[in-house]
């Protein structure tokens, strides 16, 4: 390789033996660096697999609209669209469906916008209450009181062929844009 004379000069060696040795050392390091990169890249790719998608969202049906009476808020459960066979019951994700009138719906994530605890709907108080730090939300998901800094997360939704569809698939976190 063209590097070897330079090494000999910079190292100040006169005999050919150190020249050859330092070349071997350099070549050895280079080969191992290549091998390391060739190993590290696939391993990193394997580990970072969950990041291959930026957003995990798919349209999923919550069932016929008749399941949700007008002026009521009901719990609905869907199977997360991104799942493995060994997820078990953890793939069963609940959400709150509010049917205002006709095809006018709101679907809220179960997670409180403060720290993610499951909010519960109390029809007589017309409030969602969070069991963790007492955050409350009005029927339309707007923040009513307590530590949450924003409204409940809402799923994008559509009504098609008499069924209610939501775009779902990931646990809401603060950094997600407001739906």
């Amino acid at each position: 390789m063209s590097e070897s004379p330079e090494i000999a000069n910079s190292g100040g060696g006169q005999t050919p033996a150190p020249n050859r040795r330092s070349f071997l050392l350099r070549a050895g390091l280079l080969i191992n660096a290549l091998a390391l990169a060739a190993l590290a890249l696939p391993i990193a790719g394997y580990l970072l697999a969950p990041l291959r998608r930026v957003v995990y969202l798919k349209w999923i049906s919550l069932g016929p609209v008749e399941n949700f009476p007008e002026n009521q808020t009901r719990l609905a459960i869907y199977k997360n669209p991104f799942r493995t066979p060994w997820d078990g019951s953890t793939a069963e994700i609940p959400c709150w469906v509010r049917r205002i009138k006709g095809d006018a719906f709101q679907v809220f994530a179960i997670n409180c916008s403060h720290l993610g605890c499951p909010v519960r709907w109390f029809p007589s108080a017309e409030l969602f209450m969070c069991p963790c730090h007492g955050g409350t939300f009005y029927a339309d998901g707007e923040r009513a009181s307590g530590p949450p800094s924003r409204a409940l997360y809402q799923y994008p939704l559509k009504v098609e062929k008499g069924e209610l569809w939501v775009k779902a698939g990931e646990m809401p976190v603060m950094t997600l844009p407001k739906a």
Partner: protein
Amino acid sequence: MAKLSGWPRIIGDWLRLRLSPPGLPDNSEFKLPRSAISWSYVFGSATFVVLLLELVTGLCLALVYQPSADSAWQSLLYLNYQQPLGWFLRALHYWGSNFLVALMILHLVQVFVIGAYKFPRELTWIGGILLLLLTLAMALTGEVLRFDQESYWDLVIGFALAGRTPLIGARLVHFLMGGPIIAGATLERMYTTHVLLLPAAILGLTGLHLLLVYKLGISEWPMPGRLVNRDTYLASYRAEVEREGEPLIPNGLRKDLIFAGLIVLALIVTAAVLGPKGPNGAPNPSIIQTRPHPDFYFLWMEALMGLLPAWLDTPFALIVLPILLLGLIAMPLISPTGERYILRRPLSMVIAVTVLTVLVTTTWLGTYDPWSPDMNAWSGTPIPAAYLKGRTPLEIQGAILIQAKQCRNCHALDGSGGMRGPSLDTTATRLTRNELIRQILQGGGNMPGYGKALKPAEVDAIVAFLMTMHPANEPPAHSSARPADAGG
């Protein structure tokens, strides 16, 4: 050295000939200062013993536990009820982790108090703090492996906090969860971390920690006025050990042995009496009748999240806490020399007392979390009879509405019910009739407005009931802008 005879002596002689052969320079005998043979120096070795116990019990549990989201919970029940002594191993492992964290903190406090982290033992301290953090990570991931309802929602809270990291929040959470939701991949990540990654790191760091103890020697008891000086400390320490040092085996081990033995016995009794923790409900997120609650070690964090103003949550978790931890790690670099005697280190003392006070009080508050509503109080907690006796129908109607509208979830009556809001026992002495109406309709100060959920007649009834909530000898509050007899 104690005199041995028979087989132990033969084995001892064989070992001695290999480990410190006569004729070669003898540096096998580790000596420590006489002042370090003290009951206040026993926490490190006990920590090590409990760490070994955690390794052994963890290994046993891993033989049966299923690290898969669809069967982990069943395998815990199997361990509890079918696997012979599975309950005991689970109990030992769980209570052992409590003991481990407690002993580590005692060890840390003791090292801090006697200033043992100063030159030349800075790295020993830094390694120790890293060990504490890794152990807390073990506690956190271990709680996840107890894969039940509680650990599921505790994970949600953890990820919700992590998700607030600017810019990379969502991606960070996806990486930690191994996908878009908490599911199989999440548990497997936590399992691998708990049984492979962290134990390897902990064992490595423990080896380093012990090697440093061996190389640097155990610090002598601090004396007021004897300052640590980089130029003279090593020589004076060596001189002290040579003058009046004692061999580690057996002189330095007696108190450690007794303490560690008692700790292990106490742990066995605790585990046998109290049994394993959980699992509680199945890890099914669609069962929302739950109240997440972290394990003991993180109650302080829960308390701070519940008590700090909401806008301080994120800065505290993502900025203040890391800075405090960095300060703890870097402490020996900040003050590596000087006085070691605690009464002559006023700043250190103030910091230590403050941090410990905050930790203890918040942990204590965390055990009964007054910031959480009592979600079943409205339907499950009776109205005290005294509050209903001799009341008008309107007032009784109000009392019923206080239950039916879930007011009781946040407001206690006679000590039972939620503690999120003020108790209603003496409300009438604090708010006038008009103020009560305004507060109910508009809310404010952590209370939602009930304007839409209550009809005017219902508000009348509730206010009528609340106006009776004053001690018999103390009249209800009235507006100072009006004559007292106008009734507020």
